[in-house]
């Protein structure tokens, strides 16, 4: 029998090329991972941006509160307000005795004849 006319032997090797498949799968995973990483990073950016927005808002609020408080402190410590408080006897002005004042210029001694001696209180504070 002519060997050429003999039926072909059944193929014993696997037609799927494992090496290529591995490459393909690895590539697919790589692209997938890159895609997921991109999404993750993008997501993180949005989360951080949201945190920035919230922090900025908090800073703005704190600054705003600070300015309100500065304005209130300024108002409460203004001369008209302090004078009002003194007249209401809510606060009292206590004389500082002359010996408690540190001076750059020498103090003038007070005398008993009613002569003005600037910023020198000979009477001890009550």
């Amino acid at each position, binding site marked *: 029998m002519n060997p050429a006319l003999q039926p072909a032997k059944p193929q014993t090797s696997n037609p799927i090329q494992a090496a290529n498949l591995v490459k393909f799968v690895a590539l697919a995973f790589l692209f997938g991972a890159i895609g997921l990483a991109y999404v993750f990073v993008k997501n993180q950016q949005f989360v951080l*941006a949201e945190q*920035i*927005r919230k922090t900025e808002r908090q800073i703005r*609020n704190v600054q705003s509160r600070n300015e*309100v408080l500065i304005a209130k402190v*300024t108002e409460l410590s203004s001369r008209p307000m302090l004078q009002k408080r003194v007249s209401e006897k809510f606060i009292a002005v206590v004389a500082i005795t002359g010996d408690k004042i540190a001076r750059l210029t020498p103090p003038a001694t007070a005398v008993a004849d*009613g002569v*003005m001696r*600037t910023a020198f209180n000979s009477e001890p504070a009550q």
Partner: protein
Amino acid sequence: MRKAEKMRIVIACIVGAMLFTIVSARLVDLHVSKHAEYSRIAAEKNTVRQTIPAKRGLILDRNGDKLAVNLPVHTVFADASHITDAEAVSELVARYLNLKPSDVSQKIGTGGKYLVLKRKVPDETVLKMQAEMSERNLRGVYTEIDSIRAYPNNSMLGHVLGYLNHERKGVQGIERTMEKHLAGEDGYRYTERDRTGREIVLYRGQEQEAKHGKNIRLTIDMGLQAILEEEIDATYRDLKPHTVNAIMVDPKTGEILAMASRPCFDPNNPGSSDPETMKNRSIIDMVEPGSTFKIVVAAGALNEGKVDEKSSIFCENGRFFYGGRTLKDHHGYGHMNVHDILVKSSNIGCAKMAMMMGSEKFHEYVRRFGFGERLGIDLPGEIPGLVHPPSRWDKLTITRMPMGHSVAVTPLQITMGMSVIANGGHLMAPQIVKSIESQDGAVERQQPKVVREVIPEKTAHFISNALAGVTQTGGTATFARVNGFNVAGKTGTAQKVSEKGGYAPGKYVVSFVGYMPAEDPRFVCLVMVDDAQVSSGLNYGGLVAAPIFSRIAERSARHLDLVPTQPAIALQPDPITVLFDAEEATR
């Protein structure tokens, strides 16, 4: 394959190709041809230009006390396209902002994207409102940070500080003249918003930071200002004059230490103030100065060598007939030297000195002392006053101007004129701004400026000695004395010019301008009272204005911690108070 089948495939391909071509053409049209148009629409829809407001600079006194501050407030607005429950939002917003729910609902119903609901809403209100909105899951109402100007000292120093208009631009006072430094420059940021209106920080575009305004430090000392204002308040209350002015200046530098006028206004609420009360009369009112002007003729005549310290001038025993009119002195005097002419305030002596100088020379000295010109203070509306040139003088002017008539000057000019004597002969430019301070700490100091040398130091000292005599026994201003100090100064009593022309009978503008300590002046202070409601016999500078000066000077000496150099003198009661009390007792 049969021919019919092939044909169908060809037709299907052609149809498919045509469809793709149409779609592609449309895509090209949208992405290429109409790219600019659609980009603009998209940008308008999502991108917003967010303004970053600049903070207005503060105004401080020379010691750093805050005189004008910013109070944060909010502008509350609604974006109707973000509102899902209009009724609930209207009710909530109306409750917090004190509005009618129907009004809010009507506004939201217009569907606008920027509907201002209320301006100048306090910070606390906004925080509470936002918390409740968040809790109830409502949206569509937003706020923009804004600020209002607050003046913690209320009406004190109101004329100097000024105020802002509704566009936050200074319209008066320092707020106006220093506008370019105080205002700063708003920044901006291009950013995108999502469909709920929240900013997408990731897509922020071009950004420019705000340049905050600079702080302005004034030369004003609020301690001295408070003293000045308390005293003129008392005068305004007790004597019921038309106006009262007081100015305190450091003669060596020209720094304004305090400046006040009555009536006054509260810059926190300018809308409810009478415009008349908003005038800073120290620089925009002109008055005939009266005898305070005599320092000009005395200084001029001495400096020109027309008289010297020992020259004797005959004062005509109180009646001098010249130009068809009689010029009178308060008392009749014979021969007097320049010192005594100033101490006794002789009109005739001063008129004769002016005649010795001649009109041209006398006019030159009037101008050299700064009268008839703007002195250049950093406050709006300063007027030059009115000093006619000699070509427009009549025959009497040479005898009237030396005693402060036929001339109109501002209170500031009188004060700066007296400063010439106090500082040894220099006319200083009045300075109200001490420094301009940036937010980064850079300080731009304003230096004192000498406008001109008016008279030599020797002449100034001579006049100063004479002015010290004015407050001594026999002078016209003994009530200006201050215990422990040597005070120099000059009284002024001028009949008030009537609006109808001529002089108003029985109405006087009385003043005292002096300095202390006379040997080394720390301040020059003017007190001017216009038409005090006292009898004509009492309405003199020496009786009305001098005691006010004395009280101001005494308290100022304590504030400045001046060391007394003079022996004690007996304390003097205020003459007006004594006479008032006497009148009360006889009733």
